[in-house]
């Protein structure tokens, strides 16, 4: 069945270093992908998204890369800050109008001072 998974459950990064969080998806029909971050006890917050017609998209300090050949998604965070500490989720969906998302289990990013 469809599933979205993450390679690493926990990632510890020194403050100021770059972070890379990876995600694998299994549904070749998925054409829209999002990265969210979730702080403890709060709802997920949007980080960045990408459509399947793109390989790379950049935001402020973040870059998402999409490799459709191997069905792999990654989130790169430049100059990681303490405020980046959170669980980061990837999600996949098909733009059928309902925008149903399937979320991975998440990677906890810990920023070390």
């Amino acid at each position, binding site marked *: 069945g469809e599933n*979205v998974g993450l390679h690493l459950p926990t990632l510890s990064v020194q403050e100021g270093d770059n972070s890379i969080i990876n995600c694998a998806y299994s549904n070749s029909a998925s054409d829209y992908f*999002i990265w969210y971050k979730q702080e403890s006890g709060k*709802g997920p917050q*949007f980080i960045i*998204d990408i459509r399947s017609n793109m390989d790379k998209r950049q935001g402020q300090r973040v870059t998402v890369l999409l490799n459709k050949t191997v069905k792999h998604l990654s989130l790169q965070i430049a100059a990681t800050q303490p405020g980046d500490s959170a669980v980061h989720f990837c*999600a996949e969906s098909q733009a059928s109008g*309902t*925008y*149903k*998302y399937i979320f991975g289990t998440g990677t906890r990013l810990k920023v070390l001072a």
Partner: protein
Amino acid sequence: SQTIHQWPATLVQPVGSPLSLECTVEGTSNPNLYWYRQAAGRGLQLLFYSIGIDQISSEVPQNLSASRPQDRQFILSSKKLLLSDSGFYLCAWTKIQGGAEAFFGQGTRLTVV
């Protein structure tokens, strides 16, 4: 601007008691609405979604039900709670047309005792 309200923030209920969680969206019309559940340390599981008033789709068989009596109101209910219903419940919305980012509420922590 659009906002999403979800309440209550926390809830402790005895087994067998009823449940009603409410979610409302402001600043948009005809949103897609979603209910997700998140178990501790796990990803988000889609429970219900709705593309319009009284149009509810259930994703997983369970002890819960959802209703959408108004365009921007989404309610999650149960007649008799089970211990397994404990979790973090999140309401979300997306635009019908254009854009696919899901906006989340702050969540309800439900503990069934």
